[in-house]
């Protein structure tokens, strides 16, 4: 079974239509072709739907890289489990 980071990577591949994307915590929007402010919404909604969580709008605006997205995601997954 894929861990959370691997699942997130799979979502990136689907949203940006590229099976070779390998994200790291340091990956930013500049490192993935097509990841702009408009396609970012597709990414956020895809992550929310996959994990059954909802990000806070202010939080989304602050992410600087995949690592920060991942931190928010893990926090929400933990909250959901409790």
């Amino acid at each position, binding site marked *: 079974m894929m861990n959370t980071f691997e699942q997130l990577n799979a979502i990136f591949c*689907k*949203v*940006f*239509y*590229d099976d*070779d994307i390998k994200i790291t915590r340091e990956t*930013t*929007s*500049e490192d993935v*072709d*097509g990841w*702009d*402010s*408009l*396609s970012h*919404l*597709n990414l956020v*909604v*895809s992550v929310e*739907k996959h994990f059954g969580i909802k990000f806070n709008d202010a939080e989304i605006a602050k992410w600087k890289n995949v690592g920060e997205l991942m931190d928010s995601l893990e926090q929400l997954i933990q909250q959901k489990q409790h």
Partner: protein
Amino acid sequence: MQPFKITCNQYNIAYYCTRYQCLNGNSQKLAFRYIGHKGDSCDYSFEDLDGQSNRYANLLTQLGIKKGDIVFTFLPKMPEQFFAFLGILKTQAVAGTLYSNFGEEALADRLGDSRAVAVITKKSLLKKLMRALPQLEHLKYILVVDGTENDEKALALPPMLSNASDKFEVSVTGPDAPSVLHYTSGSTGKPKGVQHVHKSILTQSYTAQHVLNLQDEDFYWCTADQGWVTGTSYGIIGPWALGVSQLHYGGAYNAETWMELLENEGITKWYTAPTALRMLMREDKKIFKRFSLNKLHYIFSVGEPLNPEINLWAAEVLGKEVYDTWFQTETGSIMICNRPGIKIKPGSMGRPIDIIEAAILSEGGRPCPVGETGHLCIKTPWDSMLTAYLNNEAAFNEKIKNGYYYTGDMAFCDEEGYYHFVGRNDDVINTAGHLISPFEVESTLLEIPEIAESAVIGAPDELLFEKVVAFIRLKDHVVWTDDLELKIRIFLSNRLSSIATPQDIRLIEEVPKNKSGKIMRRVLKAWYMGEDPGDISTMDI
């Protein structure tokens, strides 16, 4: 600054942007500073620009690229974009540019229609290009700027370029030789290839000097991507024809980064877009207090009408005025503008430049009286005007009538000679300065198996000027779900581009059409806006 002048009947754009500058004492002058998204910075002199573009010209010549062939760049903003673009022009091939966010369908349409023989791209964009490849029978070469080894379909540029000479003699190029090709969207049919010629440099350099007010000592920043006409006319040709130093930033919009660049780099003239300025307006004003923009003389904008609120905000927060400029891919350079030296009329397009003649014409082709809305037209010819829509003479003939180019914009002229944009006379959507064809989006939507019918309109939007709104009818037994909506968005983003992806998708029982089957977008727009759709007697019910 000396005005730009043609010498020895040489009109070649790339020659004036590079070699000519070196011959006129600018060889060691900064041509551009490239700053990457991570803050990495590299300076290139005019001598560097000349040498690097010569390598591209030599390599393309060795590959058999010849005068009149069409070669595209499919690159984000990066140094190779500029070297390749100028190198192509030096060989007298036609330089097309493709926005790096384009998906496979957008690429196939443009590369296929133009019968391009080569594309210069980078590794991370290759997949999109490869998916379009089966439709591109004329494409001989895919050249990869960061490639390391050749394969059967793509050639690695670095080793080939390092073996190419940095000397290249640019042949004398006539004024009417084809130069730059940009694709633009119409409301019907596929995107059209707008062909320009080398003498466009005359109008582009004139407006760079007399509208953007560029001077020898300026450090100028044009934020436009080279995939669009502003990025080539005013991010390459106009400023470099005058020997002006430029900043090119490879990162995306970020308010603090942009402010840092303006301050730290000492930008003196800045050309950007209303959407970018509206995004800045939404930021906390405290951000701007940290930066000093006292070197910045002028801000210009282009792409969509500039709302007066932006001018009020810029005066209060940045302490600057913003000069709105108007032009189109077809006009090749600024035609109507607010500019230093004449009073800004906020909300207006400004006044025509001195070297063209604009007119507001009625349906019958007569000049409209002051204050009356009509077709905004430009008297032909002017040096940077389109010379053709590639392979589409009928579309070209529709636009040029009785010696006037019909812009498709409706406007009026006031008693002081200022022009005011009223709207489009077609269904083209202007979202954040990018023209989107409703037809292109509708066609792509129909590729999704669940969709039976589609119609696309532009609706007013506070940030983007217009947003793309799609109406779809699902096939029988298909149920609308959030998953399907997401699937549609992702599909459009990857097939066309993220800017063409609808901001709003509405379900509809039937797409309104007239009796000849044409989608009645006017009716949809009225429904969407909660307005009266007017006469619907021609609707097929």
